[in-house]
């Protein structure tokens, strides 16, 4: 399951982002996962839990924003909704090839970080 590798990359990215903020723990991490990215949100959350369980970020929460791909038919000039999990690239109404926009997101958006109070006190 590559979700564990993905979780590693998320943690690395987050830890880099808070590197200048002193010791502390991640509280929440918000990520965007596109439906064409081949990453399963549930598995990613389990992987995150397992990965952070032993370290300073134990108990942190990974919020996954699911980003569907938008499919547009240039012939009908309309967006074409699909049933979940269906990826068809041809228009169900006219058979034209649909244009796909988005859905390949795999981004760390935002995090919240709780600095260690004890440490702040000793440095104050």
């Amino acid at each position, binding site marked *: *399951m*590559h979700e564990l*590798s*993905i979780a590693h*990359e*998320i943690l*690395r*990215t*987050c830890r880099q*982002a*808070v590197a200048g*903020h002193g010791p502390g723990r991640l*509280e929440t991490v918000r*990520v965007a996962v596109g439906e*064409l*990215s*081949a*990453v399963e949100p549930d598995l990613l959350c389990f992987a995150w839990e397992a990965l952070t369980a032993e370290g300073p970020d134990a108990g942190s929460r990974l919020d996954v924003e699911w980003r569907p791909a938008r499919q547009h038919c240039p012939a009908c000039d309309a967006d074409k909704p699909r049933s979940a*999990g269906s*990826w*068809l*690239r*041809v228009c169900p109404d006219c058979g034209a*090839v649909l244009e796909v926009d988005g859905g390949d997101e*795999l*981004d*760390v*958006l*935002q*995090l*919240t*970080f*709780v*600095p260690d109070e004890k440490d702040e006190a000793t440095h104050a």
Partner: protein
Amino acid sequence: MPETIDVKQRILAANEAAAKLLRGRAEANGTLVTNLISSPGSGKTTLLEATVRTLASRLRVAVIEGDIATERDAERLRALGVPAHQILTGGACHLDARQVDAALQLAAFPLVDLLFIENVGNLICPTSYDLGEDFKVVLLSVTEGEDKPFKYPAIFAKAAVTVITKSDLLPHVTFDLDAVRRQVASLNPDGRLLVTSARSGDGIGDWCGLLEERLAAKRSART
């Protein structure tokens, strides 16, 4: 007080940077790079053996093999006189671009026309990782069942080429080739689908022809 920090970074930024580097180098060298993906045992290494037998007199070929364990696949290619390097992922279910970069440094292949990267046998995980290839190739053997494109849509949608393998076994299995064609066409209208058998040689000429076409197209776009 928790601090809120906007990160706004691609999760696979490190992989994407490495892939970009690899792509640039392959461009400069005029090497066509393909990333072969399938479930375990679909016939990736066997297709490469057949490809080498057909093309090695005309084109220079090198192979990177990705497996969880054993040098077996690289040895199979070396036995045909092809420079091959084995990446052992030690459990990981996919190759990433940094591993490929490191492998290429270690292998120090001579300049080649075609570089094949055989990914770890898996239809899901390798899909997310750009290896700097010109295109992905997904293999599906006729013994795996005709429902696979819709069950694993991501890779069939992303791979520019779908290769059906082991067509010599068609008389012995239930595999609706037309159903597979329809699924792949609707997931990937611009993609190519080839039917091959490394055993009988069926379709191997088409596959090698496609590689030569793409190589020529890449080189003429460069000049």
